[in-house]
C-alpha cells in the first residue's frame, strides 16, 4: 500500500499521482492482455478526479477483468460472478459520498449478471460501470460469451457459436441507460476521454471497453486497433459534430431515404447530409441506430459516447437517510399505535 497522502500534517495534501492508485499486489494477467492497458489508463486518470483514494471504491465481478479491484489502491470489493452491480447499488444508495466504479467482463455483466446490469441502468444508480468486452470467457479458459460472434469456435462451442450476440450498447439503451459509451483498450487517449465524461456523469454510466484477450480471442478488435485499418473502421462520435471518419474524413453517416442510417462517402452526399451526433438527446433513437450500425467490430464501428442525458439519480429521492433517528424518535416509534400501561 502506498503512503497515505491525505493524512498529512496540516497543509493542503499534495496532489495525487498515478502511484497513489497502484496497490502493492502483483498483477496477474497474461502477458499482452488488454487489461493492463486499461488498468494503467485508469490509474493514470484517477488523480484527475481529485478524490482521495479512500473515497473511491472498485467493485468487480469474477473473471479476469474482476481482478482489477486488487490492483487499485482504493477500497475494493471482489464480489461474486455477475453480482457487482447489486453490491454496488447497495453501497451507492447508502454512501453517496463515495465514487463507485464497477469492473465487469462480458460474461460477468451480460451473461450471469445481465439482470443486475439492466436494472442498475434503468434505476440510474450512480455507478461507473466498465464492461471489459473481450468476447470470450477468459478466466475459465475460453468458452463463448454473449458477445462472441457467430461461428466462433471455443471450448464450449466446438462446432462454432450459433447464438446471436448481444450488442452491449444497444442492450444498455434498451434498458434506459442515461450514459453509454464505447472505447478500446489500445487507445489510451480515447479511454481517458471517455472515463472523464463517465466520471462527470451524474447517474449510471456504462462504458464498453473492447479488450483484447491474446490467449483466447486474439485480434478480435484488430480492425479497430491496427494501424493500417483503424482509421477506416473507427467511427468516432463527438457530440455536436457531423459523424465523419476515414483517414481523410472522407466517409460519414447519413440517413438514407428509408430512414435507416447508412455509411456514405461524403463526396457523394455532401457534408450537410451527414448526421450531427447529439448524445444529449432524451430520445435514444439515434444512439440506438448508431449502435446498430455495425453488427461486429470488424467493420466501421462507432466509438465514443452514444448517449449522455440527465435523469433523477437512484437513492437521491426522499430524505437523506445517512443518519439514524434519535433515541427520542425511536421511543416515539416504539410507543406508536394503541398502547396501555400495566402498573
Amino acid at each position, binding site marked *: *500500500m502506498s503512503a*497515505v497522502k*491525505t*493524512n498529512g500534517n496540516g497543509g493542503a495534501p499534495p496532489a495525487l499521482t498515478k502511484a497513489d492508485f497502484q*496497490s*502493492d*499486489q502483483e498483477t496477474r494477467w497474461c502477458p499482452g492482455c488488454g487489461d493492463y492497458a486499461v488498468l494503467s489508463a485508469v490509474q493514470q486518470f484517477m488523480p484527475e478526479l481529485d478524490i*482521495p*483514494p*479512500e*473515497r*473511491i471504491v472498485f*467493485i468487480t465481478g*469474477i473473471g479476469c477483468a474482476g481482478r482489477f*479491484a*486488487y490492483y487499485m489502491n*482504493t*477500497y*475494493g*470489493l*471482489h*464480489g*461474486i460472478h455477475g*453480482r457487482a452491480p*447489486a*453490491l*454496488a*447499488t*447497495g*453501497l*451507492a*444508495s*447508502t*454512501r453517496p*459520498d*463515495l465514487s463507485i466504479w464497477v469492473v465487469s467482463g462480458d460474461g460477468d455483466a451480460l451473461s450471469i449478471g445481465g*439482470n*443486475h446490469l439492466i*436494472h442498475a441502468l434503468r434505476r440510474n444508480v450512480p455507478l461507473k460501470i466498465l464492461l471489459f468486452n473481450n468476447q470470450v470467457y477468459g478466466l475459465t479458459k475460453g468458452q463463448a460469451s454473449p458477445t462472441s460472434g457467430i461461428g466462433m469456435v471455443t471450448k464450449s462451442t466446438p462446432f462454432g457459436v450459433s447464438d446471436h450476440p448481444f450488442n452491449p450498447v444497444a442492450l444498455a439503451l434498451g434498458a434506459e441507460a442515461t450514459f453509454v459509451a464505447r472505447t478500446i483498450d489500445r487507445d489510451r487517449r480515447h479511454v481517458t476521454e471517455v472515463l472523464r465524461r463517465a466520471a462527470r456523469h451524474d447517474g449510471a454510466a456504462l462504458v464498453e471497453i473492447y479488450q483484447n484477450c491474446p490467449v483466447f480471442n486474439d485480434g478480435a478488435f484488430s480492425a479497430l486497433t491496427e494501424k493500417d485499418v483503424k482509421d477506416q473502421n473507427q467511427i468516432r462520435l463527438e457530440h455536436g459534430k457531423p459523424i465523419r471518419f476515414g483517414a481523410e474524413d472522407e466517409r460519414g453517416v447519413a440517413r438514407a431515404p428509408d430512414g435507416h442510417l447508412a455509411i456514405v462517402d461524403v463526396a457523394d452526399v455532401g457534408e450537410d447530409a451527414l448526421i450531427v451526433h447529439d448524445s444529449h438527446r432524451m430520445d435514444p433513437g439515434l444512439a440506438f441506430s448508431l449502435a446498430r450500425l455495425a453488427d461486429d467490430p470488424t467493420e466501421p464501428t462507432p466509438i465514443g459516447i452514444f448517449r449522455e442525458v440527465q435523469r433523477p439519480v437512484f*437513492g437521491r429521492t426522499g*430524505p437523506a*437517510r*445517512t*443518519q*439514524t*433517528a434519535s*433515541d*427520542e*424518535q*425511536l*421511543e416515539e*416509534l*416504539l*410507543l406508536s*399505535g*394503541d*398502547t*396501555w*400501561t*400495566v402498573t
Partner: protein
Amino acid sequence: MSKTIEERERVIVRFAGDSGDGMQLAGSRFTDATAALGNDLATLPNFPAEIRAPAGTLAGVSAFQIHFASRDILTPGDAPNVLVAMNPAALKSNLAELDRGATIIVNEDAFSKRNLEKADYDANPLEDGSLSGYRVHRIPMTTLTARAVEGIEEASSRDAGRAKNLFALGVLSWLYGRPTEVTQHWIEQKFGRNPAVAEANLAAFNAGWSFGETTELLDVQYRVNPATDVAAGTYRTVNGTTALALGLIAASVRSGLPLLLASYPITPASELLHELSRHAGFGVRTIQAEDEIAAAGMALGAAFGGRLGVTATSGPGMDLKEETIGLAVALELPMVVIDVQRAGPSTGMPTKTEQSDLLMALHGRHGESPLPVIAPSTSGGCFAAAFEAVQLAIRYRTPVILLSDTFLASSSEPWRVPVVSDLPAIDPAFARAGGNGEPFQPYSRDDHLARPWAIPGTPGLQHRIGGLEKTDGSGNISYEPANHERMTELRAAKVAGIEVPPLEVEADAGAELLVLGWGSSEGAVRAGARRARLNGHAVACAHIRHLNPLPPNTGEVLRSFDRVLVPEMNSGQLAQILRAKYLVDVESFCKVQGRPLFAAEIEREIEARA
C-alpha cells in the same frame, strides 16, 4: 331479561367469513378491546391464498382467531370455543377444527341456496341436523344490520351491507363483556371524514350489543377477568412482522448505523418490506430489488460501506441468496438475513407456516461456511431477536440468519414496549485510520476472532477483499493448503465461540420427559406442558432460540432426562442436529401441515409418553 354471568379463564373466538365480510377488522377491534380490558391474548389471522376468490366460495374464506384469558396466554389457541360464521363457506371450512360442544354463531341470512351451493353444501347444515353436536345461534345479521342502519341519512344500503361485521363484533363484545368505548372511539376516528359511514358502523355495533343483551338466544354472558400475572410496563399489540421491523430500527438507532433493507417481494416476508418502507424518517432505506440475489448483494454492499445491511425473504428466496451469504461468510462482514419460513418444498403453500428451513440455514451453502442462526419464539420476541441478530452480526463481523415463520409474522400478542435507554448501545467499532505505518491487516482478529471493519472513507485503510481464500492476517489471496485449513478453522471457531445464554429448563420435580422446541412453537409447547401438568404429569420444557451455536448447556440438559421430545413443524430437523451433536436419542414429533403446532397436540404427545 336478566342473564347468567359465567366466568371463564380463557376463551378462543374465531371470526370467519368471506374475504369481503371484514373479518380481519372485526377481529382486530375485538383484540383492541380485549387488550384494553387487560386480558392477555394472542391472535392469528388466516387469509385466503387467492387475491380475490369469488365471493362466497370456500377459497374466499378469511378468518381471524383470538385467544384471551385472565392469565398468561401462550398461543392463539387450537380449537375455537366460539366460531362466528358469516356465510356457509366460513362454516364449512372451519367446522372441522371445532370440538363438539363449541358455540357457533351464524349469520342466518347468508345461508341462501346460492351461497350453500357456492360452499358445496348439498343441504343446509343449519337444518339437516349435522350441527347437533354444537351450540348453534342463528342470527339474521344482515337483516338486523340493515334495520339498524335504515334510519341514517346518506348511509347507502351498501354501507349497511358492509357494516354487518360490526354487528357481529357487537354481539361478541356483549357476550364477553368487552368495553365498548374502545370500539366506538375507533369507529369515530376511522370514519370521521365520512360521518354517514361512521354512524352506520356505530349503529350496527350498538345493535349487535343490544341484540346480545336482549335476545333470548343468548342466555349466558361470559366474563374473562383481566390478567393479573402481567409485568408492569407499557404494552401494545404487535405481530412478528412489526416486532422485527421495530427491532431492526432500534438496533439501527442504538448502533448509529443507518439501515438498508433490500428485499424482493415474497409472501409472507413482503410485509416486512412494506412495514420498513414506511419509516424513511428513521434513517431507514428500503430497496425493492430486482430479485433476491440482488437484494442480498445490496445488503452486503451496504455492509461493506459501514451500514446496517439487512435482507428478508421466505423459502424460495433463501435458495437464491445462499451464494451471496457465502460471500458474506468469506468477507466476514456483518449482515442480517431474515427468512420468514413458509410451507415448502418449492412454491409449496406460500401462505402457510412451517419450520423447514433450519437445515438449509445451517448448511445451504457450498463449502464450509458456518454462520450464526437465531430464531425468535414469540411474535413479541421478534423484536429482541432482530436486535440480537444485529448485535451478533456487528460484534462477530458475520452474516446472521434469523428464522421467523408465517405464524409468528402474522400472529399478534401484547408486547411490553422496551425502554429505549435499557437497550444496549451497539458499537460498530470501525477500524480507525492507522498512523503507525504498519500495513493494514484486514484479516487480523480480535478476542472474538472478529476482523476489523474498515469502511470506505477511512484514510489509509484502503484494502481489497473478495470471495477467494485469503491469507490469515493480510487478507491477500492465498491457495496455500495450510492457510486454507487455518482459515476454515478460524471461521468455524469464530461462530462456535459466540456467547449465547444457556438453556432455561422449566422442570417439574421428578420429570423424566423433556419437551424441547425451537422457534415459533414455544407457546404451544409451554401451553401443552401446562395442560399435561394440570392432568398430573410431571414434565420439563425448554426452548432453543439459538440454533447455531447451540446453548452451552444443551448436551447436559438433554442427558439429564430419560426421554426428550422434540416437536417441530418439519420432518425432524432440530432433532437431527441434536442427535448428531450430543448422541442423544431424541424423539421427534413432526407436524408438516402448514399449520402451527397446537397445545393439544403437545399435551397428547406428552401424555402418550407418560
